């Protein structure tokens, strides 16, 4: 899977980040966070397996926490950290409920493929 | 008509709270194992210590000799016929003419018990009219090849040794043969 990364989408920001080995500041963390968020977003649009889509959602959530922690660290405030605490808690609840829904769906339909779950379409 | 059986309905006592937590039982069990921890070891340390073999033990079947050191087997082949797994093979033979007990009986030329087949049932011992084959107390038998586990005559006598009985069958037969008129 690492080999497939040679597509330009992934190379560009990495090259940008790695080039100078500059002192790491807020910029780097925010950029990384944006990159992860974009990856997650990309995955949500791209994949057809409900579970993988859900994983990509988690990835997006996680990316946002990184930004919050970074802002909190570089501004010397507590709020971002506390916020991440809540995000993690909510994410745990959300994963539990979401996976329960997926399991229920799978029991009913015997599939987790998105385009087969089109009952509302017809 | 059978009289109606008197049935006693046994009421199982409901478990108490302590019992439902399992804890008293678990602690009791722990105490029992701890007693064994400090108690006497019951394991026999095998190669040095050997188990006591009881008299009726059915170990490896062996051939025995009489008190004078003669073979008792007369190769009647009853054991060969009775052996359920057909582990015994006997080739009957003459006793050499120059032997002191020649012309009285036969003796096995070959006597093989295949220990890979033997099931230690003891029927050979039961059936032997001469009391020549015994299941004795040899219980550990091992070898590196299949051929090694087929006991031949020498091996069987070596395992069996002599059986100090008081029949002196050969002596009597010899005496009878000496006193009787010669037939041929």
């Amino acid at each position, binding site marked *: 899977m690492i080999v497939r990364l040679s597509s330009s989408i992934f190379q560009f920001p990495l090259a940008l980040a790695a080039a100078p080995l500059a002192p790491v500041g807020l910029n780097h963390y925010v950029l990384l966070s944006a990159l992860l968020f974009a990856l997650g977003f990309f995955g949500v649009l791209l994949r057809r397996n409900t579970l993988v889509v859900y994983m990509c959602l988690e990835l997006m959530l996680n990316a946002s926490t990184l930004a919050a922690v970074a802002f909190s660290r570089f501004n010397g405030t507590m709020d971002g950290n506390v916020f991440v605490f809540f995000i993690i808690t909510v994410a745990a609840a959300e994963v539990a409920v979401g996976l329960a829904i997926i399991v229920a769906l799978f029991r009913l339909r015997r599939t987790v493929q998105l385009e087969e779950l089109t009952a509302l379409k017809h | 008509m059978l009289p109606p059986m008197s049935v006693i309905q046994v009421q199982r006592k409901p478990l108490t709270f302590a019992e439902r937590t399992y804890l008293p039982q*678990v602690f009791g069990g722990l105490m029992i194992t701890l007693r064994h*921890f400090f108690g006497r070891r019951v394991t026999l340390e095998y190669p040095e210590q050997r188990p006591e073999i009881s008299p009726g033990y059915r170990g490896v079947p062996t051939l025995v000799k009489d008190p004078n050191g003669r073979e008792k087997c007369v190769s009647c082949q009853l054991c060969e016929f009775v052996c359920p797994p057909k582990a015994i093979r006997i080739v009957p033979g003459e006793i050499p003419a120059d032997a002191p007990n020649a012309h009285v009986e036969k003796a096995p030329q070959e006597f093989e018990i295949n220990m890979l087949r033997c099931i230690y049932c003891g029927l050979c011992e039961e059936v032997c009219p001469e009391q020549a084959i015994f299941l004795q107390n040899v219980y550990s038998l091992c070898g590196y090849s299949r051929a090694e586990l087929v006991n031949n005559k020498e091996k069987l006598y070596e395992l069996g040794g002599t059986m100090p009985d008081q029949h002196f069958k050969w002596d009597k037969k010899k005496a009878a043969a000496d006193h009787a008129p010669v037939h041929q």
Partner: protein
Amino acid sequence: MNLFLQIPPVVLGLLKGLAVICVIFPIAGACSMAERKVSAWLQGRFGPNRVIVPWFEWIPFLGRGLQRLGVFNLLADGGKLLFKEDPLPGHVNKFYFMIAPAIAIIPAFTTVVVVPFGAYIDQAGQVVPLMLANVDVGLLAVFAIASLGIYSMILAGWASNSKYPFLGSVRASAQLVSYELSLTLSVLPVFLWVNAPGTGASLSLVRVVAFQSLPGFWGGTWFIFLMPVSAFVFLIALFAETNRLPFDMIESEADLVGGFHTEYGSFKWSLFFVAEYAHMTVGSGVFVLLFFGGWNPLPWLPIGTFFGWLGLVQSAGQFSYAIAITQGVLSIAIFLAKVLFMIFFFMWVRWTVPRFRYDQVMRIGWRRLLPLALANVVVYAIVIALLQGD
């Protein structure tokens, strides 16, 4: 000694880590032997007592003694497992099958980093804990890293591509996640007690031990006397988390052949066991630190007083490394003795109590232990608020 202090901190950290691994790994390995000896003794048997390295026979008393203890069996076992043919079944997912044992080992040894294992008294008269990293989040880090160990079982079971390992790994994941709740909740009262208002806050295990080494009746009390329910819940959850016998659902050989390691053999298989024993060692260590007073020799007998009795006290002006090292070694010895007793206790229970059924395991976890842990937290929160509140 000065040379020792001049080593750069990174190298020093690596050396310390290596030293700790060098202790934990043999303990974990020796546990597999001890398990067999203890099981034998508990059942009135001798256990393995035959293997001997040739020249050791000539040592008059010790050689035979070690042979009877089965010490050399350990070496023979290790050699056997190392040089045996390493089977790789054709139907497995090779990558995950290979890395699963490694994943088992890594978290098991990483947890040691935040566990203190001894202490000495420095120039200022302060008790300095011996540990690799004294972090604020101490115990949480242990829980977090230990919870990663579950992946080895899940991956091993899944990669084996065979139904018994798979069932074992599914059971493992459900069981470990269930008991983690009780495990974490059960230690909360301890930290509520330790982090009294106005004293700073830390989840470090050092702080817990420091609290159990205070002078006076309440200070010197070990937490097992103060919070027996917490200790009980923690112990049960520890049994479940380390997959020890009343809860070893994932390998229950009666119904699952060998559970998640059914398809494994030789060295990879033995790695799972080293990991299990390492988990057990660290778990016992944490239990000792939390509830059995860490490196304090007896309840109400802090190690400082103990050193005083032995004359191992540093006078105010001069600081002797020899005394400090003796103190450190002594405290480590006390701590290790307690840990070994805990490991013995694990084995003792294993060879006494039969395995639960899986539904019983789940029922105990969710319907007995979790409510008990929650009630325990609530009660202690109220009690501590009443005692320590202003």
